[in-house]
């Protein structure tokens, strides 16, 4: 499940290609909420957290601390993995994880 689905976010439509400065919403406002999910912040990651559901004790600290809401959860709110479209590889989840091996940072192949 992706974060955008879990928030019920509608897809933000960018202005049409022939739109002018007269057509865009004033002040840079996007007249819709929850659209940060549409912007994929996982592109510039240099290392990625790797999640092991066998070891995880479901304390959910990673989910609480992740600044990008990139810890994927199921309907019960249990951690199921990482949303790599939005995870920027900060490593906070791995630092906060109390269980050895449940969340481990691994270098991305660049």
């Amino acid at each position: 499940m992706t974060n955008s689905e879990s928030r019920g976010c509608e897809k933000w439509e960018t202005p049409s290609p022939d739109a002018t400065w007269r057509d865009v919403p004033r002040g840079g406002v996007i007249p819709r909420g929850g659209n940060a999910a549409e912007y994929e912040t996982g592109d510039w990651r240099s290392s990625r957290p790797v999640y092991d559901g066998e070891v995880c004790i479901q304390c959910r600290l990673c989910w609480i601390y992740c600044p990008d809401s990139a810890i994927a959860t199921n309907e019960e709110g249990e951690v199921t993995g990482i949303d790599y479209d939005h995870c920027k590889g900060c490593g906070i989840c791995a630092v906060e994880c109390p269980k050895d091996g449940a969340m481990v940072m691994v270098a991305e192949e660049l």
Partner: protein
Amino acid sequence: MSLAANTSGNRMALTGNESVAFAMKQINPDVVAAYPITPQTEIVQIFSSYVADGDVDTVFERVESEHSAMSAVVGAAAAGARSMTATSANGLALMWEVLYIAASNRLPIVMPVVNRALSGPINIHCDHSDTMGARDSGWIQLYSETAQEAYDNTLQAIRIAEHPDVELPVMVCQDGFIISHALDNLYTLDDAEVQGFIGSRTPTYSLLDVDNPATFGPLDLQDWYFEHKRQQAEGMKNALDVIPAVAEEYGKLSGRDYGFFEEYMMDDADIVMMVIGSTAGTAKDVVDAMREEGHKVGLLKIRVFRPLPVAQLVRALRGKKAVAIMDRAESFAASGGPLYKEIRSALFDCEKAPMTSNYIYGLGGRDIGPEDLRKVFEQSLAAAKAGHVEQPVTYLGVRE
């Protein structure tokens, strides 16, 4: 400002700071976030006593810096609140980053600024270096000669800022100490008249409108940033229509008429002095004295500097022989002050353009008297006679 016969209201004796604090009380904004700085401190201090006494419904945020004050009113204005703060000099400088954000997010914040020299060397007295530095921040700038004008401009600023064609923040400037701390005898409106005039704010977007959620201040890169800046420029252009319309309505209510600028003895004047702020009062006396001696001199006092009313200024100056442009700020361009540059540029395409000269004066609160201003007129008369300006930029009142 000129007083029409039907000037009305309640007579009060107030300083510039008191008049603005009183205007804020009558506006009764939703949110004020403020940090003290001389010579503005009194405005928010007096306003905080209105809050403590329950005279206003305002949420008053005491923040830890001007950067935070401006950030807090940005958030409040984005939420749809009518939001105000006030500052001076270094406080304005500390707001700098957020000034641009307020303007580009199209947030109609109204901010009284009490003009003070921007350090250094450190100095608490009046010049216009603080707000002149902020002239490209995207804020509308209204300047006041007197406490009366500071009061009237503050009320009009709410309407200008919040107008749906504008939605831009406004600085309402007055001269530090000279106006802010000097007692003036002025007219105020009734609370109900003020509320009737300003109405309530209808924001285009609001963070608190949960039925229509919106995202404020998102990343805006190569694809649409330029369109948003173009749009912002249009808001500033629209202000050229909105400012006179608001002034007309205010004039009917108060009996006090405001234009983009005030013209004093301009009709048949050959020599014009252009000035911003309290020095206009002294200059009018000098004009009177020199008129008695038979000199055709006049005064043009700028009220609206952003947007700059170029067409109207050109119309007012066309055919004059010489204009002495007074800058209470040095822009360190090695070629004159900010008002001079803009007026000179505005006159470039004008037929029968007057010759121009620039006088930088009054920095750090240096007093300027009638004898200084008389010298300016005399030099301009001589230049008009000779057909050329001997010295384009003069530092007036400095020890040579």
